[in-house]
């Protein structure tokens, strides 16, 4: 999942894949803005055929949070 996510992240923000870790914070470290972040989650929704809850999304801070959340809704 991390590798897949890295591939997607580099399409949204200027960062080298090797600099992305599970601990990377999306806004502070990877410099996502809110609209980029929402667009990326939208793309993940489509790719994984899941539905992201916008309220839950507010709790997502790190790459690891994204992975944990997506795994939880994939069931």
């Amino acid at each position, binding site marked *: 999942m991390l590798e897949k996510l890295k591939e997607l992240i580099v399409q949204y923000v200027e960062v080298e894949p090797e600099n992305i870790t599970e601990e990377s914070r999306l806004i502070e470290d990877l410099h996502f803005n809110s609209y980029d972040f929402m667009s990326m989650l*939208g*793309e993940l929704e489509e790719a994984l055929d899941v539905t992201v809850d*916008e309220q839950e999304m507010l709790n997502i801070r790190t790459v690891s949070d994204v992975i944990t959340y997506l795994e939880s809704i994939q069931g």
Partner: protein
Amino acid sequence: MMNKETVKTLQDLLVQAAAEYGDKVYMREKCGKEFSDTTFSQLKENCRRVSAFLNECTGGTKTHVAVIGATSAAYLTCYFGTACMGNVSVPLDAQLGVEDLCDHLQRADAEVFFFDKRYVSMLEDIRANCPKIHTYVSMQDVDENGVFCLSEILSNYQPMQWNKIDSESCAAIVYTSGTTGKSKGVMLSHRNLIDNTMCQDGESSTEDVTMTILPIHHVYCFTCDILLGLRYGTTVCVNDSMMRISQNLKLFQPTTLLLVPMIADTIYKKIKAAAAVKPDVSLAEIGRGVFGERLKRIYSGGAYLNPELLKAYREMGYIICQGYGMTECSPRISTGKDDDTNIGDVGTLVNGCTVRIVDGEIWAKSPSVMMGYYNNKEATAEILTEDGWLRTGDLGYVDEKNRVYITGRRKNLIILSNGENVSPEELENKFSGLDWVGDVLVYAEDDGMITAEVYPNPEYVSSNGKDAVSEVFKAHVLAINKTMPPAKNIRRLRLRTLDFDKTTSRKLKREQTTKGEICE
């Protein structure tokens, strides 16, 4: 055919739209993998059922009814069910926290409250703080004590026959987002909203499909997506989340779009990024992949649109029609025309709107100008003259072809000790479209120095380092100052590490709690 003579109230608009467009789909929403469609006729019938319910629970007395939630046919059913029977709708900002929400409900004297079910968790606080509200209705099914569900109302009540209503009566109280001070309740009459809907001709057609993205409580979205949709028989598709704009554009394939500059800018950045990895594909082709094959026209309003962005869209084959207005004018004062290739203006005055320039400030007069602020005579007198001119607070001018140009906000003016005025927006606009700039504010510090404060683009900082930002900032200010009279020169530079404080509609607050470091 609807015209100004036959349509004078929201009730007339809805009734005639149902008569003219009947079983055509008016609103299309996503419901899982399927569409949920509402026709023009269904909307009218459901609104009449809500009116019957309101008539019963208010004893037929004029009532203020608040509505909060995402754009949906259910939302419009509650809004129009209220306004079409002569009651007053109060659309509220879905991003308000519970404290502000209670404040707005109380100040608007709301007695009935329609809400999306996610507000159920706030009901305890609302009940405790808003004693005037006697009836609570969830727009989705919930099992909650003392809360009605819209679906039960639609099943249990027969459509009410509406009496004719006065076009001069208040249809809605809309709270301004306001970047300074406490928001004010703008009273818009049926005449105001209908004038803004009917003032132009040929803006859309029954063939058109639009995708509504902006928040429904904004009068820009309400008039230009919802009311124009009813007038022209347009199908309005609902973008269910800011997360899914790209997916929904592909799904709904709209022919027209109403945007704010931030969205137009972000979409363009994505298109450019896609072009960089596919150099053999034209920007126009990538654009069609993003916007769909049918998009003809984009309307932009709400904030300053960088002319460079306008040009970039033109190169892709899309016309951005830029408009200008404010909640107090329902909202349009000017609107873009797709055959006007001029750059730098914010559209041409809409029919029926006259403008005069007083001390550089734009004053507007039209049947769309609000009745006043609810329970706030003092603020009303500040913005409306006795003979009906609306002081827009914007500085600008109108050319011989009635095109409007904005040069700044009057209330943000920096008054220098020599009596000269400086418009911060005029200077801030010189920072737009630069890749190292995230946001910028220009203001005068206590010692009178004109300061430009920048929150740099974090991506730029991470790639180039903070020192590079500082250098490019200094060089840019030097270049700007050379083009400006000395009184307007920026004398102090500040760089922030934290983003600016913003309002819920993502506008920068003029009053910030922290300042950036001085850049020597």
